[in-house]
């Protein structure tokens, strides 16, 4: 990969070969490379494929039999799917925490491996789109949402904004990664004019995807639990915990499994980022809770239900306290300077997993479900995901991990020898 200051190079294919023939070769070679590996790699991919197939089958059954197979109701009309969707948008946006040091602060070592964050964004957005489709009652009418041929309620509906920003972010990252890997395949220096503007745009865009996703919820006056101006900043703060946490664990694994070097410095940078973002997130949660509980009144019902249960209904209480415990413990671990020591790698990974799971609960089940409990007519109908919903969810996660694994494998040559360019 080149640095920003690298002089523009030839972008037309040389050796009398046109892109029309060399691009398919690039795709073919990438696919071949991505399917090469050790026995453990094949076992991993086989397991993911099996889980994905279970999810695909569960989803097909849901479409055939109606969404009665889920445990959602007219009271709690969004559940595990939308919870995961919300979290995955954060994960996609979180990758930008590698892009910012690499491109805005010219951190060379981060720059060499920044593609990991961009590839994560691709996998996460693919999962987002799958979760939205899984949540649709009529996926066969998906085309109604397409601009021009359907009826797109833009700019009034926040959901149409989300469709635009998510797909835009996917295209941006596909372009950036695709271009860099293709240039690498051709053995050329990437031309900065073909990707630097897109990288800069992707930084702004990453913020926008999570802001718009928060606006989906916080713009609803009838749902006091979501109707807070703090929602978008909170979403971003937790995204900048979960994204870097996932990337740190990935990098520790990549280093161990593939021998890619130069990852320790980026790991340290991301750890320092989480150290701050996890505290900002906790501060905002505390601020939110103070406002809710000190004010009291009927606006606090959902928060009461979430933390202590309401009228004897306590389904979410164990979830939320688990999240609080994980978030606080992870925050304390990240505050400890020794966590960056090499011999504490397993502890760093543990802290990352704790922060990741904590954010998943807080932003998923802990945010979407209490928005519906009590209902707008103050009925308390509880929600626990059904087996079908878990199967579909695991299937989508497996597919996302497959996409991420394949993407990383495709990028391995670039990661292993960044200095070449």
């Amino acid at each position, binding site marked *: 990969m080149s640095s920003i200051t690298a002089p523009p190079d030839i972008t037309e294919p040389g050796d009398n070969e046109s892109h029309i023939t060399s691009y398919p070769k690039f795709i073919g070679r990438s696919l071949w490379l991505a399917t090469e590996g050790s026995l453990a790699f094949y076992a991993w991919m086989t397991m993911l494929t099996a889980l994905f197939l279970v999810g695909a089958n569960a989803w097909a059954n849901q479409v055939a039999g109606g969404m009665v197979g889920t445990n959602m109701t007219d009271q709690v009309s969004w559940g595990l799917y939308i919870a995961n969707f919300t979290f995955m948008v954060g994960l996609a946006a979180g990758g930008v925490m590698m892009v910012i040091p690499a491109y805005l602060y010219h951190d060379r070592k981060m720059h060499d491996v920044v593609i990991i964050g961009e590839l994560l964004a691709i996998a996460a957005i693919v999962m987002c789109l799958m979760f939205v489709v899984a949540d649709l009652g009529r996926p066969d009418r998906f085309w109604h949402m397409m601009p021009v041929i359907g009826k797109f309620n833009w700019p009034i509906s926040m959901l149409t904004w989300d469709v635009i920003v998510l797909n835009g972010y996917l295209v941006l990252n596909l372009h950036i990664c695709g271009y860099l890997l293709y240039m690498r395949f051709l053995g050329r220096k990437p031309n900065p004019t073909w990707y630097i503007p897109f990288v800069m745009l992707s930084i702004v865009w990453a913020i926008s995807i999570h802001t718009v996703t928060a606006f989906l919820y916080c713009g609803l006056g009838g749902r006091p639990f979501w109707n807070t101006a703090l929602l978008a900043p909170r979403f971003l703060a937790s995204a900048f915990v979960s994204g870097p946490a996932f990337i740190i664990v990935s990098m520790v694994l990549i280093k161990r499994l593939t021998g890619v070097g130069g990852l320790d410095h980026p790991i340290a940078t991301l750890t320092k980022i989480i150290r701050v973002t996890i505290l900002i997130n906790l501060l905002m949660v505390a601020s939110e809770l103070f406002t809710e509980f000190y004010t009291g009144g009927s606006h606090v019902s959902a928060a009461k239900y979430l933390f202590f249960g309401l009228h004897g209904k306590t389904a979410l209480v164990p979830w939320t306290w688990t999240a609080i415990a994980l978030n606080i413990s992870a925050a304390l671990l990240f505050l400890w300077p020794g966590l960056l020591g090499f011999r504490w790698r397993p502890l760093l990974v543990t802290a990352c997993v704790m922060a990741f799971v904590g954010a998943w609960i807080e932003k998923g089940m802990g945010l979407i479900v209490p928005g519906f409990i009590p209902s707008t007519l103050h009925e308390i109908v509880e929600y626990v995901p059904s087996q079908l919903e878990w199967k579909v969810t695991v299937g989508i996660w497996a597919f996302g991990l497959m996409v991420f694994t394949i993407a990383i494998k495709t990028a391995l040559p670039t990661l*292993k020898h960044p200095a070449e360019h």
Partner: protein
Amino acid sequence: MTTTKNPSRPSLPIVENFTRRAAVKGAFATLGAGAFVAAISPLRQAAKNTTAAEFMQQHYTELSPEQKADVIARLEAETKEKYGADVTIADDRPIPGTKFVYAINLSVCNGNGKCVEACHKENNHDRDTNQSYIRVIEMPKGTMDMEKGSTTYTGTVPKDDKFYLPVQCQQCDEPPCVDVCPVKATWKEEDGIVVVDYNWCIGCRYCEAACPYHARRFNWKKPEVPAEEVNPDQSYLSNRIRPVGVVEKCTYCLHRTRRGKLPACLEACPTGARVFGNILDKDSNIRWILENKRVYILKEELGTKPAFFYYFD
């Protein structure tokens, strides 16, 4: 690993058993694709229930009169085929100079629930789930806080220390449900009624999350109504039997009210608590009530501007 270990040139690995590996990979890819097709085979069942004509159908507001006639003929035939019932589906349009408004006298309503039942039958709701567009909240006297109420009350009504608050779609003038719909499957008509094109809704349920009155329902399963119980007087935007996977709502019984009749819930009410009419008609009952009673609306602070009023005597 059989790849070449030349770090400086990571190109297509040329190895002796390249062809064999390619064949193995191809076999696994085929196996995976086959397994995927098998996994999603239940979709074939779902595809059988959706005809090409239904899949290609345009938005209600974009159908020409001929297309509309075709769609309605198809829907009538489908109802005959799937439910065994002969029905007429009309396309009732707003009457010019009409703006429908509802009011309920809470001093009179005694929570008997006849409106809930009438709605269930009139609008061809799913029998298993006992669906209805109306919910009645039993409230302790002395509070307007819905949190203290109950929608699942039982026993003889009315109870001395309670009053009863029926809630259905408020046909808001600023409907949040309409704003959030990503595909314009729901909109407000000239007579104030918020309708849904059940053949355009994609089932994302964003409107259900946006509605502050719990007025919207989702068809989690295919509605089941025995042939002899199907109400054959239907309208495209109103009480025709809804498809699975779409959102539905109260339409002030537009298949009745746009033909000069009263809503089914009003006709069924034994107490006379319900008043319905055209607010633009100066001599209407509803107009007199709004002018002379101290009326209030639900959740006024949200700015939804309901066309549904409550009052006490």
